[in-house]
């Protein structure tokens, strides 16, 4: 692409994004380390909200609000619902981490190192101009809607079938008065 400016003079977008990213990563860390199940879900909310902010910075406005609507509004509520149905206790539970923890940490760290290395190597010079003077905004509802229904209709329909299947599956799984016979 065009000439990438130095990393040492971040633009406003970058600063905001970095702040949001730090929040997201920190919240994600808390999600996987906190000793309270419900706190994990709430930290997940924070993380997802921060991510939505990241999307906003990246001009993906529509996706950002979908993220808030679906994830924060529905998914996390569902998660909390599940947590409560499975009798999560208030306060710390000592056994939220399995014995696999060290292995998991090693694997995750290795993944992070490898991916960061590879990615940093590959996209060091990639740059996109997000300033209003830059390329046209792409993430408006109009643009996304047009894209979905112009080019992505078939996957969209397939997705609706998938959703239906998931709906029926969830109902069948969770109802106890249906007996397979």
């Amino acid at each position, binding site marked *: 692409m065009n000439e990438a400016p130095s990393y040492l003079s971040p633009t406003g977008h970058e600063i905001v994004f970095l702040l949001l990213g730090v929040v997201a990563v920190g919240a994600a860390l808390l999600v996987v380390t906190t000793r*309270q199940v*419900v*706190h994990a879900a*709430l930290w997940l*909310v924070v993380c997802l909200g921060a991510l939505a902010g990241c999307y906003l910075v990246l001009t993906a*406005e*529509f996706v950002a*609000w*979908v993220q*808030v*609507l679906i994830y*924060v*509004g*529905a998914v*996390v*509520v*569902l998660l*909390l*619902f599940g947590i*409560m*149905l499975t009798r999560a206790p*208030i*306060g710390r539970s000592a056994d939220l981490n399995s014995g696999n923890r060290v292995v998991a940490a090693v694997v995750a760290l290795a993944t992070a190192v490898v991916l960061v290395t590879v990615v940093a190597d590959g996209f060091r010079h990639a740059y996109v101009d997000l300033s209003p003077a830059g390329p046209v905004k792409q993430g*408006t*509802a109009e643009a996304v809607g047009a894209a979905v229904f112009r080019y992505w209709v078939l996957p969209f329909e397939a997705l609706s079938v998938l959703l239906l299947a998931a709906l029926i599956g969830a109902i069948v799984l969770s109802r106890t008065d249906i007996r397979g016979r």
Partner: protein
Amino acid sequence: MAEVLDLVLRLVLILAVFLVLPLIVGQTEHKVMAHMQSRLGPMYAGGFHGWAQLIADGVKFMQKEDVVPAAADRRIFSIAPAVALVPYLVVLAVIPIGPGLVGTDLNVGLFFVLAVMGVGVLGSIMAGWSSGNKFSVLGGMRSAAQLVSYELPLVLAASSVAMAAGTLSLPGIVEAWEWWWLPWQAIGLAVFFIAGLAELRRPPFDMPIAESEIIMGPMTEYTGIRFALFLLAEYAGIVVLSALTTVLFLGGWQGPLLPGPVWTLIKVFALAFVVIWVRVSYPRLREDQLQKLAWLGLVPLALLQLAITGVVKVALA
């Protein structure tokens, strides 16, 4: 500088509206409910028919001791009221009162509103869970179930309007509104309003706080200012719901003779009155009835409305 001033002004205005309107609605509820029950309601505070009752209540709430149960999860318990309240405040920022009289005109305003309102229920779930009280947890779970169920018809009904207007921007929708949308979107109006009531957990959809069985649901353990915040959230919710319904289905500021903002307020208060009226008139729905209403009643109706909207839209085009 002017921009900043403008922004500040708008925010202050919104904050004022946010603080004032719920109080008015609350007072209205006190009085209207009393009279509907052949009572007088508050009569003393402030002198004339107890007009300052809610202020007095507020003072009282602030004076009360802030009790946190020993078994509670303190942090979550503390922030839950804020989580319940703030989304409504945020939503108010995008609701237009008159032509150009809007906190900020978002491109995807409707979406924003729905998304942010969905966050509000988190507060009630958090409160319910963190109280360390079985009734509260029950209430929280009922809240969650209710929210998940009613979110769908709410969004569907709203999307019907968006479809009709061809925009997600709230001022845009109001501008596109014509009087004949009333019959056209009547089903959507009903569905949206009822689902909104359910999202607010107002009677008759107050299963989550049903005081006769689970005392006050998520709010059982709350006292003082935090409880007041919950109450405020409820009334703010009424305002937001009424305002949204007005903007989406009733044409917002459109109306003859009177200036736009006045029309908006009139419609908002009329709807708020309906909210109160419904509360007084109907008994609480049972949990299964509640779910049945959502899935067997509102969702099909909303889909029907969508279909109607689509057909008419295509026919007009």
